[in-house]
């Protein structure tokens, strides 16, 4: 079943003197429930604008987005849409609102008018899911970047959404923080069946997704299994996006005349291919 469907979606930002800038120029996609989708594209490619249309933060200027059948442009359904699609943004410091961790997570369900006993249960459950139970009574501001983003994820989880959109949620983290966030996200996808849409600049993070969607200049230019998409490395370099670390090395070795497949995506594969040269 499709969790989210986009049909011929456009979005324009209003500009000075009536000039509009079209950031998304006609995207048609269907996101399967339970899938882990990576969305990549350089700055200005339209991917963050697209992300904001997935839970009705932005409504398409043309075309239609439906979330489990509900049209995001339908004002009567916007609460359904927002409670089904949670968003985690780039800067962890901008997403903390309370002075203690438990209150921060309770903010979402409180606003949905959920009863107190249930909120308490959800806070404990969400903290456990992101591995932060020990910090329940602490202050969010003393946490590391990775912990803050896990807290932001817990805050979204407490609303019990079925889709989680991470908009460059790992961009400001150190390698350890990135690993923490990715591990939590994968686990939610695997154990809870959460649909994940992960927007990232790290091509190596995109590798482990079920599906990789590449945006350029407001359009989807590649869509498929990560391995197949990274196989189109010429296109990816042309749109200034790049490929995973091992792929770059494989391409350079291939171009130097060695018998190495330039479609290699992983470091272990690369190691094997170099060993095979012996």
């Amino acid at each position, binding site marked *: 079943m499709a969790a989210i469907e986009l049909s011929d979606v456009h979005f324009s930002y209003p500009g000075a003197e009536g000039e509009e800038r079209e950031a998304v120029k006609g995207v048609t996609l269907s996101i399967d429930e339970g899938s882990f989708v990576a969305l990549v594209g350089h700055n200005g490619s339209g991917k963050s604008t697209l992300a904001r249309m997935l839970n009705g933060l932005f409504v398409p200027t043309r075309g239609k987005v439906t979330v489990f059948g509900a049209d995001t442009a339908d004002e009567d359904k916007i609460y359904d849409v927002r409670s089904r699609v949670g968003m985690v943004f780039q800067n962890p410091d901008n997403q903390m609102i309370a002075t203690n961790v438990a209150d921060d997570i309770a903010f979402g369900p409180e606003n949905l008018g959920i009863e107190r006993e249930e909120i308490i249960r959800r806070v404990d459950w969400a903290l456990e899911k992101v591995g932060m139970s020990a910090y329940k009574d602490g202050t969010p501001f003393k946490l590391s970047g990775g912990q803050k983003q896990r807290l932001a994820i817990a805050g979204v989880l407490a609303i019990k959404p079925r889709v989680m959109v991470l908009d460059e949620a790992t961009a400001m983290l150190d390698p350890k923080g990135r690993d923490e966030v990715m591990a939590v996200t994968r686990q939610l996808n695997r154990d809870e069946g959460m649909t994940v849409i992960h927007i990232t600049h790290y091509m190596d993070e995109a590798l482990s997704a079920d599906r990789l969607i590449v945006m350029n200049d407001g359009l989807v230019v590649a869509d498929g299994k990560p391995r197949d998409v990274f196989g189109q490395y010429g296109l990816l370099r042309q749109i200034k996006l790049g490929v995973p670390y091992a792929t770059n*090395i494989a391409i350079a070795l291939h171009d130097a005349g060695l018998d190495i497949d330039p479609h290699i995506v992983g470091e272990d594969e690369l190691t094997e291919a170099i060993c095979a*040269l012996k």
Partner: protein
Amino acid sequence: MRIEVKDLSFTYSPDTPFQKQALSGVNLQIEEGDFLGILGHMGSGKSTFILHLNGLIKLQSGEIDVFDVKLVPDKKNKQDLRKLRGTVGMVFQYPEYQLFEDTVEKDVAFGPKNLGLSDAEVASRVERAIRLVGLDYEDVRTRAPFELSGGQKRRVAIAGIIAMQPRVLVLDEPTAGLDPYGKEQILELITKLKRECSPTVIVISHDVDEITRFADRIVVFNDGKVAFDLPMNELFRHSEELTAMGLEIPRAVAIADKLRARGIDLGDVVNADDLVRAVVRKFGHGNMDETAISKLSASQFDFSAEYGGTAAGGDR
């Protein structure tokens, strides 16, 4: 000319329940011309150390000599601090958040104006700095910084520091949050700035793959002390100790280590370019001479047009 740090210790919130020792007995010399990388996980003391280099933290104990400006505890000297800040230029994390003027030109001029230079000198430095960072001076000078793309804004912020013509340029996580192409552009830019503007460059990064692209020497902070201070090719012979400190090993080193375990010794490899060259030397069957091999690169983008001198510079 050099930076010399002797027995530097620093404690945050001393004599309170929140007391935390950030540096203990750090000794370090940085020579003019060094391309120094600083590694260390969060809380290792690396940022506290860097803040000392241009007097942003008051010295508690130890001595610091930056190009003959001497700092000692409990001595106040505004003249020295002014000189120090003209010598060491600091580019903090996400420097574009600090842009505040309504035009690019005014923003870049802020630093040199505060150095008390003449208007003509300020104007010429501003133009040079904007061109150096690869932006089109005529196009961007009167534009508002917020109209620019993320990568362009960061370059404007760097231009503001460069316009003060610091002999030492310190950059803290200079590529954080940028897309792959934006990252590559900043890395190219840093190399260029070292060549044409600030001969001594110090970069803090937790992206070890990035640091191995350009640094000659790496200092590793751990627990408030200098754990390693080595030329780059020697540092990663200590990969086990670095891993034990919670640091990442460059991916090229990890791959070379795996190959070594399988009986293929590529020698010292620290980055992707080294790895490519070493593999071609070993398995290329002589179809390339050494000059050709030394030009091989795993880098994905070509910047020869962008930084070739005329610097057109938009990345939108």
